[in-house]
C-alpha cells in the first residue's frame, strides 16, 4: 500500500526555516538545527532553497547497510522506521544515505530519520507558503503536471488534452 510522502516545492520556499524549528521542538522539545529531521539547504548560486528529508526509498541503502538490522519498513506501509533500542549508533546509515537525510540525534546518540509525525507532519502544517505538502506520490505528480500546464498554456491539463485532441 502506498503511503503519503513529504514533498517540497523549491519555487515556493522562502527559506525561513520554520519547518526545522517545529520539527526539532516536536521531536526533542528544543531547537537545535542539527536535531531537525528536515534540513533546508540555502543554495545561493542557484538562487534556491532545497529541503533535504527522508524520501522513504523502496530499496533503502540505510536498510541494506545496517549491521544490526534495526532499520526496516513499517509492516503494512513503506515508511522507514528504526528500532533505536538495538541501534548501536555506528552512523553507517548516515554515510550510506544518498540524500544526506539521516540525522544524528545528539541527545540519544543514535541516527534518526523523518517519521512523518505518524501521518500528520508538523512542518507541513506550519509552512507559511505551502511549499511543503504531504501527498500521495501519484497525486503529487498529477498536481505538478497540472501546474506546469497552467504555467505553459494558462489552462488545466484536461483542457490541454481536449484541445490537442481537437487539433489531431
Amino acid at each position, binding site marked *: 500500500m502506498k503511503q503519503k510522502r513529504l514533498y517540497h516545492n523549491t519555487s515556493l520556499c522562502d527559506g525561513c*526555516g520554520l519547518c526545522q524549528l517545529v520539527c526539532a*521542538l516536536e521531536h526533542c522539545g528544543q*531547537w537545535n538545527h542539527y536535531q531537525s529531521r528536515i534540513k533546508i539547504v540555502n543554495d545561493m548560486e542557484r538562487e534556491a532553497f532545497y529541503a533535504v528529508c527522508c524520501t522513504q526509498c523502496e530499496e533503502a541503502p540505510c536498510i541494506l547497510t545496517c549491521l544490526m538490522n534495526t532499520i526496516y519498513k513499517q509492516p503494512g506501509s513503506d515508511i522507514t522506521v528504526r528500532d533505536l533500542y538495538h541501534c548501536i549508533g555506528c552512523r553507517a546509515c548516515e554515510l550510506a544515505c544518498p540524500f544526506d537525510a539521516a540525522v544524528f540525534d545528539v541527545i540519544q546518540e543514535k541516527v534518526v530519520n523523518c517519521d512523518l509525525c505518524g501521518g500528520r507532519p508538523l512542518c507541513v502544517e506550519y509552512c507559511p507558503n505551502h511549499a511543503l505538502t504531504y501527498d500521495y506520490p501519484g497525486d503529487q505528480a498529477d498536481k505538478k503536471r497540472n501546474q506546469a500546464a497552467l504555467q505553459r498554456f494558462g489552462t488545466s491539463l484536461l483542457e490541454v488534452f481536449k484541445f490537442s485532441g481537437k487539433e489531431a
Partner: protein
Amino acid sequence: MFGYAGKMLEVYLSTQKIKTRKLEPDLARDYIGGIGFNARILYDEIPAGADPLGPDNVLVFSVGCLVGTPFPTASRMEVSAKSPASNGFGSSNSGAFLGLRLKCAGYDGMIIKGQAQKPVYLLIEEDTIEIKEASFIWGKDAWESIDLLRARHYGAEIILIGQAGENLVRFASIENGYYDGFGRTGMGAVMGSKKLKAVVVRGSKPIVPADPQGVLELSAKGQKLIKSASSYQAFCAYGTMNATIPYGGFNALSVHNYSRGTLPDWKQKAGRQIVDIYGSRHIACQSCIIACGHLAEINEGKYAGTLVKDMEITPTVSYSSNVGLSTEASIKSSELCQRYGIDMSSSGSVIAFAMELYQKGIINKDDVGYELAFGDDDAAFALLRDISLRQGIGDILAEGVKRAADHWPGADDYAIHVKGVEVPMIDPRGRWSTWTLGMLTNIRGGDHLRCRNPVENLRYNENLYHYQKERFGFKKPMYDRLDMPENLKSAAIDLESDTVDIAIMSKWAEDLINLYNSVGICIRPPVMETIGPTLLAEIYTCMTGIPMSPDELMMGSERAWNLMKLFNIRHGEVAGDSKFPRRFYRELQSGNIVDEDKVQAVLEQYWQARGWDPGTGHPLPETEKRLGI
C-alpha cells in the same frame, strides 16, 4: 535558565582575554533581551566622555529572547555602542540567521572591549573561542572576505566590516552575511577601530523552552494573527516597496538632498512594479512568514550580472530619489554599499549633500577630481568608493554631513541631519505624522525606524490641529483589535474626530518597537498592526518560565528607553539637539515649511507623556523611581 542561552561572551581584544559572564535572572526579567541588555551594559560600562573610536568604547551584540522559537519573524539581534556619528547611544538591528546561530553556540550576546594591536577576527564554535589573525582579509571587501572565511569555516554565519569600517568612515555598517547588515549609526567604524574584521559563529547547542507545547501553540496563534493583518498580502508580494508611491504622492520624499518633494517619473522609476521586473524570488529571515526580501537581478545593460537582496524602500529612496539615480543603478548601489560595508541611507545622503554643494558652487572640480551632478551614476559610485577608501574629498565626507559641513563656509545650510545622523527618506514638510516626530525623539538620532504608528494610514495626508494629530482613517474593528491598554487607547485614538494624538502615540510606538527589538521580532507593518504586549507576555512566560504580565513587559521596554536617554544625557545631549535641520524650517517645499514653535509644542507634550521634564527633556526623578532604574 529556560529560553535564554544563559551566558554572555566577554572579549578583551587589548589583552586577548576571553571570559563568559553569567546572565543574571534580574537582568533577564527587567530588560528582557536584545536592546534592553545593550542599554544596561552600555550605561554601566562606558565612562562619560569616552571616545567612540577609542579603546573605552564597548560593542555589544545581543540576541532577542524569542529568537529560536517558531514565533513569526523572531530572528532579530541588536548591536549597540557609543556612536561615532551622534556621540550618543548608537544602535542597529538586523535579522537573517546570525541571532539564532549565536544562541545555538550558547550565548545570548557578546561584549567586545578594548582594541587589538593588529587585524583579528573572532571565531566562536560553542565553547572554543579564538581570536585569530586576519591580515589575509584586511583591506578586502565584505563579499570577498565572506568567501575566504567560508572556505575556512564551512557553514558558519559571519558578520564583518568592509573597507569603510576599516577606514573608520563614521557611517560604516556591519554586514551580516552577503545581503543583510547592521546599517545605521556607524557601528562598523566602532568594529573597525577595534581592528576586529569579522566574527564567525558556529554552534549546535539546543535552546530549551520552559513549555515547548505552549510556545508552539502561541506561535501558531501569532502566525494566524499576522496573516489576518490588512497589509499582509501586499507585504508578502512587494515588501516595503508598497510605500514608495504614497510617499511620492505626499511630496514627502527626500529628492536631491531635500530640495524637492517628489520626482515626475517616480512612479515608473520606483513604484512597486519594479519588484515584478527585477525581483526573482523571495528570501525570508529565520522564522519569517512574510519574506519581504527579494532577490533582485539585472540581466542586461550596463549593470548586467548584478544579484542582490534588495528592493527595500530605504535604499531605493536613498539612491533613486536622494541621489537621483536610475532604477538599475540604485540596485547596483546596494551591491557596492554591501561590499564596502557602508550604510545605504547615510551614504546616499552624504553623496546628495556633496552633489548639492557642487551644484551651488561651494566645492568645485578641483576639490573632487570629477564632475558631480544629480543622477550621474558614475560620479556617485566614484564618490562612494572615495568615501569608503577615504581618498581625496572622500576623506572629509567620510566624517558625515555634520562634520563635513564645517570644512566649507555656507555648507551648513545643506547638511541634513539630526544629532549628527543623516535623515533618511521622509520629509516632514510633505507629511507630518508620528513617524516624522520620531526622527526628533529617536534615541539614535535622525532615523525613522524607532517610532512608527502601528496603525499608520497611508491613504490620508492631513496636517490636523497644528501638528498635534494625524488622521486615523480606519474602521472600528481595527480599533478594537489593536492590542493596547484600554485607557491609553482611548487617549491616543479619538474615533469621533477620527484622529490619533501624535505625542501619546509616539510614546506607545517607541515602547512597542523597543519591545520588539528586545524580544527579537521584526517591525514590519503586518506585525505591528497585530502583535502586542498581551501575546508577547504569554509567549515570554512559556519560553522562559518567568511569570510576566503585559504591563511589566511594556515597563521593561520603557525602562530600557529611559536608560538610553540617560546614556545620551551623560554623553552630552541637550534639549536643543532635538531639532530638524535648518532647511526644513526655512526653505519652502511644495508650499510648506515646518513650524518650529508648533513642533516644539508637540515635543514638549511627548516629554510630558514620557514623564520627562517638559523644559529640558530629562527623565524626572519620579519616572526613574517608577521604572526602578
